[in-house]
């Protein structure tokens, strides 16, 4: 078995605290998503590449270095730079544990180049995987599920 796990290089430096006031403190409820499959559309429409249907692929993508995002209830996507103490935006234990989970996040929002970047300072509530769309879509994509016979 070969595991390719990559984590993000964006270590928020020790100077972060001094500069945090330049961002905006926010509290956002949403789902931790696989931003690549969500934006690319190559694995399915947005309803299929979220939730339990896409959970396995989301793990692969996060482990492979794809930054996770927070899909808010209003449809806004926040690119997560860091989640509470884990200096990664992908592939870290925290990111993997929260893949596809709905969370309430408290953190600092940075807007830049038309994108929303979020440093999650605290996961206020981990609601777990609440979007059980595998009942509608099955696993998306199907090949994300390893074949135990091979």
């Amino acid at each position, binding site marked *: 078995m070969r595991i390719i796990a990559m984590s993000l290089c964006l270590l928020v430096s020790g100077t972060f605290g001094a500069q945090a006031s330049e961002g905006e403190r926010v509290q956002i409820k949403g789902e931790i998503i696989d931003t690549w499959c969500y934006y690319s559309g190559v694995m399915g429409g947005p309803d299929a590449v979220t939730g339990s249907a896409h959970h396995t692929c989301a793990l692969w993508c996060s482990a492979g*270095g794809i930054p996770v995002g927070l899909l808010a209830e209003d449809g806004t996507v926040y690119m997560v730079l860091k989640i509470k103490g884990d200096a990664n935006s992908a592939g870290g234990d925290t990111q993997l544990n929260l893949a596809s989970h709905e969370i309430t996040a408290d953190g600092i929002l940075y807007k830049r180049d038309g994108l929303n970047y979020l440093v999650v300072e605290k996961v206020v509530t981990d609601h777990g995987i609440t979007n059980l769309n595998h009942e509608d879509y099955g696993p998306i994509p199907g090949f994300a599920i390893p074949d135990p016979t091979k």
Partner: protein
Amino acid sequence: MRIARLICAALLCGGASGALAHGSETHAAPAIPEQSAAVTPLPWDIGGPFALVDHTGAARTEADPDGKMQLVFFGYANCPGICNAALPMMAEVTDLLAARDIAASPVLITIDPVLDTVASMGPALAEISDDFVGLTGTPEALGLAYKAFQISFTKIMDDPKHGPIYAHGSHIYLLDGAGKVLTLLPPVLSPDQAAGVIAKYAKPRGAS
């Protein structure tokens, strides 16, 4: 090996076109919002001087010799994971910018100087684009670059086919010609979107 194929498939699906979707269909993807005027300073002080060697053996610092903007990625030339998608994306962005008369260099700074040598980086990167600049150096010299950009990575294992496999970052840094970090680019942006972001940082021709 099955798991490796799955990971690569998951990554490659985004790096390539929709033709790699399950079946041949593509799906409407939500658009990244139009760029707003809002700009928040990045929450860290990143970037700084480094002195490395490019894939031709020439010395290279954080400044582009021709003063071009630079798209900088930390990875390795034969990385089967995110680099496999990010590096071609950087090359395509460079082409899109060139079509808009904006000069930029895609730059890969290796995280493995044993794997990526002056001799080996050029041919590997040329398979992606002749525009690519590969930078390597001594562990000490590279360490300064990693420190400047706050790069962390971890060797996960040795793969029989690909060699060392690393956990490493995936954002692309946009530097000006002097080597100052202007912004970062998530690798999930489409080439068009990334080129659009970069174009906003480009100085008009003749501007100092």
